[in-house]
């Protein structure tokens, strides 16, 4: 695979290292002179100096034959533009972009960027996962594939409490994959019994969050549960 990485910061460099290790061909585009000089000894011919939002620079990088573009600069507007140019101008089949400010996630979604990675959102998910106060934590979202991984608590009044997984009536579009109990994950075999207070890992199709919350946390309003873990709660 040939990958164009725009942005040679920590994320870009480490992505380049991993992809090289996996045997892929790649080029990193970096516009800061000092950073470019720093990367040069390691990346050698796999490095190009220039503004990766300039069409002629991307052309020089070989964007026309790229299988994948990774837009990981520190500026969200630049990452959006790189993704747009990759699709509009060069017809690149897949684009992955970094979201620096979680408030800009909606813009990336609006522009139809295939996959986005937001460190702040992931960090928040992990913190919520560690803190016992959160009853519902969205852990991972694969937008293009239309699937999400979430963690949810089983309350005492849930119809699922004290039932074997095979007997639980789950909402449409929800799959239980593991039960987390006392810091250990138990794979969701049909015979496994769900206890109140367990955290359950579920795969679900987006849009089924409320149905899931209703069945595991029946005494709470789904909107309230979702609002507690929304990124807006910390960025507003």
């Amino acid at each position, binding site marked *: 695979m040939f990958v164009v990485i725009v942005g040679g910061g920590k994320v870009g460099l480490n992505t380049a290292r991993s992809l090289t290790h996996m045997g892929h061909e790649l080029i990193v585009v970096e516009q800061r002179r000092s950073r470019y000089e720093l990367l040069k000894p390691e990346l050698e011919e796999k490095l190009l100096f220039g503004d990766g*939002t*300039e*069409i*002629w620079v991307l052309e020089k990088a070989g964007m026309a034959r790229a299988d994948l573009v990774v837009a990981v600069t520190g*500026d*969200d*507007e*630049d990452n*959006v*533009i790189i993704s*747009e*140019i990759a699709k*509009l*101008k060069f017809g690149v089949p897949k684009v992955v972009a970094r979201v620096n400010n979680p*408030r*800009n996630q*909606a*813009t990336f979604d*609006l*522009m139809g960027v295939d996959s986005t990675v937001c460190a702040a959102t992931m960090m928040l998910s992990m913190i919520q996962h560690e803190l016992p106060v959160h009853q519902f934590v969205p852990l991972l979202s694969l937008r293009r594939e239309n699937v999400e991984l979430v963690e949810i608590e089983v309350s005492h009044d849930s119809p699922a409490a004290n039932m074997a997984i095979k007997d639980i009536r789950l909402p449409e579009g929800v799959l239980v994959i593991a039960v987390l109990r006392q810091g250990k994950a138990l794979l969701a075999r049909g015979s496994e019994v769900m206890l109140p207070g367990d955290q359950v890992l579920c795969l679900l199709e987006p849009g089924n969050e409320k149905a899931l919350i209703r069945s595991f946390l029946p005494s709470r309003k789904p909107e309230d549960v979702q609002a507690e873990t929304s990124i807006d709660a910390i960025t507003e």
Partner: protein
Amino acid sequence: MYVVIAGCGRVGSSMAKQLVDEGHDVVLIDEDSGAFEILGDDFPAQFIVGAALDWDILRRAGIEGADAFAAVTDGDNTNIVCALIAAREFEVRCSIARVYDPLRAELFADTGIRTVCPTREARLMMLDAVRSCPMNTTGG
């Protein structure tokens, strides 16, 4: 007409002046609260301090229902992205971005926004000006 302008620099502020003189309603957005000083204290327009990429800032500027949106910040990419947001999310029919880079101006001209490229205009005017210079006939 209700016009939202992102960027209160030389172009944004003078556009605002002209539009207000013509009797239009204008809202200006700029990240720098000092940027509005160029228009004086009594200027009859609403100022909003914030990033025009932020959907909440655009909403506060009344983007929903605006007749036109003009993005004239100092960043080409910012201008394109916020003009796209105005057009696609807030359905502003006339969403215009100032883009210095002629290549990007051309590429994004067919994506639901209009682009204005001062570089292209300047090039034509400079070429005309150079061509109209009299030849030095005294020999040199």
